[in-house]
């Protein structure tokens, strides 16, 4: 793709607008997509650390059988908040942060379409996070029904559940507003010549993800609102004593929950597509296929929700339908993996940190996909439901999928954001430690699950001890490795070798036509894409 850059107006854009308010007010009042993107990314990293501390608390308790450091109720609160914070507080905001930073720069737009709504989308997050975290300290403690908030547990628990419901509402509003902004920006603010099929894959995947968010977030809001009215306003949606049905909650939740899995991972597909192409120095193999496959995965993700609930009681026809549908959806996902490998085939590969994390993503996400296929089979799932096999499976897709692609994106675009190169050696150490400790933590959990260890329990039978100890040591190693990432980012922001406008020689896209660091206002005059 080739862009005509009109003069150097962008680099001097500061002068035309004066300086933004300084200090705290800059961040409170900003409508600049880069500022808001930065806030999203720091917020998500902070939440990643909070959720990570909860994970380490869980793993500490599970280091040996018996109860050591947590009461069972507290343990359940930890697993619940860990899940909610990681999904809604860490991963989703991280990708919205990347979207804010990169989509306007990649499509040649001056900013996001709705600057003030963008600011509001972000500033809704801290109150929601505060509600979640402080719910630990109210009478009865935090929600302890699991991140899925299953009824009837969620109908029965204390005020921590109300705080969680409110937090989920706020987070959902934030996501919906962010999505409206992203869709409008992509559809209306593209530079002349940047037609839809010329857009970078990251932009495409976000466009599709944003539609998914708008489609399913209201479903989650509806589900938790029904819990709220069951709790306080005398309804009986999920209360069997009043004629309701707790299984209804599971259907409504997973109608949101399965597309949510794709919401979390599809922007990661976009990142990996761009990074693999850049470091293979080849155009992406099957660009159109990737776009079509992503769109079809998004559509098909609405038709497979009940594979999460084979064991709650379902007619055999229902089990067969959801089993077939789930297995078929693996085809377009498999094609993506094929495309990434074909992109690398006979490419001129180099293995800088972004590429390493993308390769780690492909390797581990494929494993997560395979264990997903295992779980898709109803007769097998009946054995595996609610065991550590499931925990291993979804951490392979969420951590190795979403988180590794987020790391890849951060290292890939960090020079563009900061104007400095990060420490490559440290980045590689971060990758290898993350890869090793990740597998140490989660690979053994497959065996724990196969051997019958249930999830969401603070205590377990003696024969599970060794694998749990390995997993706990791995978890601490993984957690501590992330401090290297933090250190690398902070040193990169503070200084380091100056980054050229395009630090990766194989990278494609408009963002690399801007200087590094990208000016505060970029593409005020739109480029023309040829």
């Amino acid at each position, binding site marked *: 793709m080739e862009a005509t850059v009109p003069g150097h107006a962008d680099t001097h854009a500061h002068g035309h607008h004066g300086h933004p308010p300084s200090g705290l007010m800059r961040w409170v009042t900003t409508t600049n997509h880069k500022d808001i993107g930065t806030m999203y990314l720091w917020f998500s990293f902070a939440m990643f650390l909070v959720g990570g501390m909860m994970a380490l608390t869980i793993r500490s308790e599970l280091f040996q059988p018996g109860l050591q450091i947590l009461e069972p109720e507290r343990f359940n609160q930890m697993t619940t908040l860990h899940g909610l914070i990681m999904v809604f507080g860490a991963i989703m905001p991280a990708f919205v942060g990347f979207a804010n930073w990169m989509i306007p720069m990649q499509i040649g737009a001056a900013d996001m379409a709705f600057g003030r709504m963008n600011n509001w989308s972000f500033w809704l997050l801290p109150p929601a996070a505060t509600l979640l975290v402080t719910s630990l300290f109210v009478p009865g403690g935090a929600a302890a029904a699991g991140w899925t908030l299953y009824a009837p547990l969620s109908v029965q628990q204390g005020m921590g559940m109300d705080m969680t419901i409110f937090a989920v509402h706020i987070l959902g509003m934030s996501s919906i507003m962010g999505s409206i902004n992203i869709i409008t920006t992509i559809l209306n603010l593209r530079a002349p010549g940047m037609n*839809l099929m010329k857009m970078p894959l990251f932009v495409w995947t976000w466009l599709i993800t944003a539609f998914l968010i708008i489609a399913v977030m209201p479903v989650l809001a509806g589900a938790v609102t029904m819990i709220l009215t069951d709790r306080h306003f005398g309804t009986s949606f999920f209360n069997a004593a009043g004629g309701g049905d707790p299984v209804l909650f599971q259907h409504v939740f997973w109608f949101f929950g399965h597309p949510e899995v794709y919401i979390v991972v599809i922007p990661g597909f976009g990142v990996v597509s761009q990074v693999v192409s850049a470091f293979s120095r080849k155009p992406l193999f099957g660009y159109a296929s990737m776009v079509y496959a992503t*769109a079809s995965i998004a559509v098909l993700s609405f*038709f497979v929700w009940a594979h999460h609930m084979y064991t709650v009681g379902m007619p055999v*026809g229902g089990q067969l339908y959801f089993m077939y549908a789930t297995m*078929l959806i693996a085809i377009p996902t*498999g*094609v993506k993996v094929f495309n990434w490998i074909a992109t690398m085939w006979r490419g001129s590969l180099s293995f800088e940190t972004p590429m390493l994390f993308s390769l780690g993503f492909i390797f581990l996400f494929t494993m997560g996909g395979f264990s997903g296929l295992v779980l898709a089979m109803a007769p097998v799932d009946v054995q595996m439901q609610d065991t550590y096999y499931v925990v291993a499976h979804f951490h392979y897709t969420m951590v190795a999928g979403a988180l590794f692609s987020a790391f890849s994106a951060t290292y890939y675009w960090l020079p563009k954001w900061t104007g400095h190169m990060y420490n490559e050696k440290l980045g590689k150490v971060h990758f290898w430690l993350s890869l090793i400790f990740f597998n140490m933590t989660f690979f053994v959990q497959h065996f724990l699950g196969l051997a019958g260890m249930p999830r969401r329990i603070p205590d377990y039978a003696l024969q599970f001890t060794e694998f749990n100890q390995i997993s706990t040591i791995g978890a601490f190693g993984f957690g501590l490795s992330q401090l290297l990432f933090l250190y690398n980012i902070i040193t990169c922001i503070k200084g380091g070798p100056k980054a050229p406008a395009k630090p990766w020689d194989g990278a494609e896209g408009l963002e690399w036509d801007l200087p590094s660091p990208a000016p505060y206002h970029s593409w005020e005059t739109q480029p023309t894409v040829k």
Partner: protein
Amino acid sequence: MKEQAPVAKQASFLAVVTTIFWAFFGVRKRSDHESSTVNITPVQVVVGGLIGGALFVFILIFVVRIIIANHGTTI
């Protein structure tokens, strides 16, 4: 989407169906893609995709019903 305005001719129904089928499979031949992006409008893709999704569900339900009927169980 102005850049798609100068469309020579609208894609045929069959072309849309073929595109959607390959999209569900996840593979697309380059020459087919190049001809289809010229002719197929985003509205056709979205409507076709939704109909394709519905068909996907109905075909699977049909298959499941046949399997269950052959095994003497009710759905």
